[in-house]
């Protein structure tokens, strides 16, 4: 079975600054991988490389067997035209730290926007699916509310529904609860747990160690642009092998 995500020594630098220095990992279909690490360790950048919001400088990144961002012809790589990159992203949902909902559209309109505009879904079908998704994230009654009228937790749940509306085979979460008040974190994590239990493949950058322990199949600790340690979350969390992992975990747990 082809893994959902396969990274082969992925490197990314911004000018002279090397942010990723060879990240290699595999995520099987239906698995949840949680990425942890201090800020600046490159975990968000790696996540953004997976859907080509950032272009990889070296190494290879495959999603469901497709090389991301480039086309391979013979032994030469060609930069991918924007249209094709957009096509690859359709299958990859992304949830941002600051939600990034469209403020000029209601919750429902946020959700149906991409299916209608990008996939050409009929409006009636998109609305039915959108309402269904809102119900799944527990916000059925908020369909006509604008994002500014929703709490942070509600906005993030709408953002998850918006990503799911494209029927992605992979979901990326970039610190989805970091911008939330503590009492709102739980409602977003609950939606993510449900999603994981339904078999969605997920890559989650988070500082919620409880979530990692409970939901993750694989925990990866990154520091300085490399993977320092990875494995079953229980083992890594309770018995970290590496000094840097120990130091980090003692601060966040």
């Amino acid at each position, binding site marked *: 079975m082809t893994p959902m995500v396969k990274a082969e020594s992925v490197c990314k630098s911004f000018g002279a600054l090397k942010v990723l220095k060879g990240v290699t990992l595999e995520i099987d279909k239906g698995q949840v991988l949680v990425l942890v690490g201090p800020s600046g360790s490159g975990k968000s950048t790696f996540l953004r490389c997976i*859907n080509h*919001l950032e272009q990889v400088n070296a190494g290879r990144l495959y999603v469901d067997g497709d090389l991301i961002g480039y086309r391979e012809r013979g032994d030469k790589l060609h930069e991918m035209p*924007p*249209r094709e990159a*957009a*096509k690859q*992203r*359709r299958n*990859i*949902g*992304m949830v*941002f730290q*600051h939600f*990034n*909902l*469209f*403020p*000029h*559209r*209601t919750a429902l309109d946020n959700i149906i*926007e*991409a299916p209608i*505009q*990008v*996939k050409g879904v009929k409006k009636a079908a998109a609305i039915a699916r959108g309402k269904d998704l809102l119900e799944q994230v527990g916000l059925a009654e908020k369909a*006509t*509310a*604008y*994002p*500014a*009228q929703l709490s942070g937790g509600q906005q993030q749940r709408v953002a998850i529904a*918006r*990503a799911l509306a*494209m029927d992605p085979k992979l979901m990326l979460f970039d610190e989805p609860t970091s911008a939330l008040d503590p009492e709102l974190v739980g409602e977003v994590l609950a939606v993510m747990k449900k999603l994981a239990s339904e078999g969605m493949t997920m890559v989650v950058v988070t500082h919620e160690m409880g979530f990692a322990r409970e939901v993750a199949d694989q925990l990866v600790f990154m520091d300085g642009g490399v993977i320092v340690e990875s494995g079953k979350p229980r083992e890594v969390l309770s018995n970290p092998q590496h000094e840097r992992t120990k130091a980090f975990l003692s601060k966040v747990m």
Partner: protein
Amino acid sequence: MTVDASSPPAIDAVPLRHPWRWVAAIVIVVLVVLFLYGAATNDAYGWATYRKYLFDQRISAGAWYTIQLTVLSMVLAVALGVLLAVMRLSPNPVFKSVAWVYLWIFRGTPVYVQLVFWGLVPTLYKNIQLGVPFGPSLFHLNLQDLSINFTLAFVGLGLNEAAYMAEIIRAGISSVPEGQSEASTALGMSWSMTMRRTVLPQAMRVIIPPTGNEFISMLKTTSLVTAVPFSLELYGRARDISGVIFEPIPLLMVAATWYLAITSVLMVGQFYLERYFSRGASRKLTTKQLEALADAQTLGLGGGQP
């Protein structure tokens, strides 16, 4: 939280008084009345002439030309301005430099000079043809035609204004947070779709107020088209008439009245446009939403938070 009969009565306080506001208002009203009385009793204003020419057919025809010039040049300016702004922000270096050079030239020279230049174009080029080289012609414009001056006037005004509109639109686009285009990209939208569906609608909130300004400013700049020369618009007409009857002041007042009236109409339009594009910008609930919430509260009386 429960609502019951023992809740305290609503506060009935004595409102704060503002005596100095009244004093200022009275002083200003007195001054205005004095000025109006002085103006009404001063024969030099020529009120009889003012009344005679206010609804003169030549003047209203001139006002119609002014409106046409304003609308046509602004439509051209906004269309071209969007194109230039998007070109300046696009990743394509060719588009970027073309837009920059356009702005450099059209903002760097006075509009009056540009209008004189457009008036002289017919001496440079006899006619304009669009078509296949050495083949059939698809479009033909005879620049020797006498009615060409109206076209030259609005094109001249529009091309100049486009440079300013481009900067206003660019500022609006830059005001939309980066996360917005990132979210659109992540959803698989192309660059142009992101611009059209996500960025520009949000930029409109920033773009509309200064564009309203430009519209009103354009209405008055049309009085410069005499440089082309085109003189059938409002100010040109008023000046022509005053030149014949030797009474410049009442005719100026006539033109000013018309400009003010048209501006007032434009301001009403601006109000509604701004309200439309500020959707979702505020946490404040609309009247409709508040009513719905109040209804829910009444239904679930005593049920606490709606």
